[in-house]
């Protein structure tokens, strides 16, 4: 596990942040879907490119009399998927689209592990009904990097050792990116206040605040 936190080794280690980022979006979706042994049942279209790309979305696990079709965009890929209205955005991402970078912590909006962006705003995906995503734009941790290049916030979390177990990390990073974009990084106190919705039970808060200060400077330059 130490190599994930070591920026020199991270790029070489299979499964690390850097290694994952080298994979295309389609390959990531496909690899995880095959691993889960699911059928190809729905299509997803890149929002910008013209030709349709088939990707793997798991079917509804049971028949639902209330099922509805959801058309949304996840990490710049247009997705059309049949859902039961009870489904949370979190479960849609993890169980149907196999984007498991977003974590389920409390499932009640209290811990922040499930933080994603909807139309650029950070939200708790566990308390967001997936049905609300019609026509909207979702970004998860998998959509944050620019190809093989880590987002400055991802790199800063590595550089500042801003994690121990890593379970809260994707939520921390998504919240942190939004925190910078909102302009809530004027001081350490303000960072702590505006990051208070993300709990880290390992207590890596000192590193997290340092990473956000560092990444905020780099994000301002780009």
């Amino acid at each position: 596990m130490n190599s994930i936190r070591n920026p020199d080794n991270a790029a070489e280690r299979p499964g690390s942040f850097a290694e994952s980022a080298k994979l295309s979006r389609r390959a990531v979706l496909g690899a995880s879907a095959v691993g889960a042994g699911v059928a190809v049942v729905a299509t997803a279209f890149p929002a910008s490119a013209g030709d349709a790309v088939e990707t793997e979305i798991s079917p509804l696990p049971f028949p639902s009399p209330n099922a509805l079709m959801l058309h949304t965009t996840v990490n710049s890929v247009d997705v059309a998927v049949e859902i039961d209205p009870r489904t949370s955005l979190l479960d849609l991402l993890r169980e149907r689209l196999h984007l498991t970078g977003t974590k389920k912590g409390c499932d009640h909006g209290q811990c922040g592990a499930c933080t994603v962006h909807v139309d650029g705003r950070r939200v708790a995906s566990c308390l967001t009904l997936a049905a609300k995503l019609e026509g909207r734009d979702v970004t998860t941790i998998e959509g944050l990097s620019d190809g093989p290049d880590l987002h400055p916030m991802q790199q800063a979390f590595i550089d500042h050792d801003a994690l121990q177990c890593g379970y809260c990390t994707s939520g921390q990073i998504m919240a942190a990116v939004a925190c910078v974009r909102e302009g809530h990084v004027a001081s350490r106190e303000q960072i702590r206040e505006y990051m208070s919705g993300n709990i880290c039970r390992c207590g890596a808060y000192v590193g997290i605040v340092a990473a956000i200060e560092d990444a905020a400077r780099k994000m301002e330059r780009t």
Partner: protein
Amino acid sequence: MQPFSYVRPSTVQEAVTAFSHAGAGARYIAGGTTLYDMMKLRIEAPASLIDVTAIEELDKIETHSDVLRFGARALMAEVAANEVVARDYPVLAEALSKAASQQLRNMATVGGNLLQRTRCMYFRNGEGVYPCNKREPGSGCAAIGGLDRGQAVLGTSPACTAVSPGDWPVALTAMGASVEVVGPSGSRMIPINDLYLLPGNSPHLEFGLIPGEMITLITVPKNGSARGSTYHKIRDRWSYAFALTSAAVALEIQGSIIRNARIALGGVATRPWRAAEAERVLNGARLTPETALEAGRAAFAGATAGSHNAYKIELGIQTVSDAILIAAERSRS
């Protein structure tokens, strides 16, 4: 979770009609931060949800006339960041920005937040183990005589001591806000004071709304005390927690004489609590630390504690007193 049908109308009239057609078991849903949570806990089990977040007419935030107007669908984060609110109405901005987390404030609406339900742990987590008159009317209250550290000390009844959890409703109560609701028989304006019910013998009835009515607008009259205001919130930790005690205070001061005091309490009562006794102590009085403390004592004169929550009375008195001094300082600048 019980299955439900889901519709997303684009106008208020369509939503009201959809509610009428769906009949009993229908619920409006906006951000979902309370209702969806309650559904996961099996406290709420609606048969149909009418999502009101596609209704664009509920979006407006107007701050330029002599009445502030907040469309019910405006997000808590949006209103908290509004320039006029942040500059001229610190009590409103602080009540919003000290509530929940930025993620939840990006989801929850200012209308929906008025209907947030209690965090009483027997209510939330006691299903199948502990009785609760809110969950099952007539079953009893396990909080009374139980672990009642978080329970209310004002407005309680022998049937319920659950705290009204919100911050925003407390600030709006201090500022004398009104709420527009639209239902099957048309629209009406109600003072925010009338939106909340005391538990009495029927703690499952919490809001003064007729079935099928939805909140569409919040209005706040402008007045001279707004700048001299604060929402002072005391929590178990510095951020991201519900209030143990809180006070919304707005003061208009001429010279050193208080001309108009507005005070409401959170975290300590079964509904947003207007502290009229404390206001009476202040109105016409010279502002001193002693008068502030006297007002705090007046606010809690009728309080009754259980086994583990007597601290809320002393803490609440100090919270009111400190909030008065903070508001007074701001009213001078």
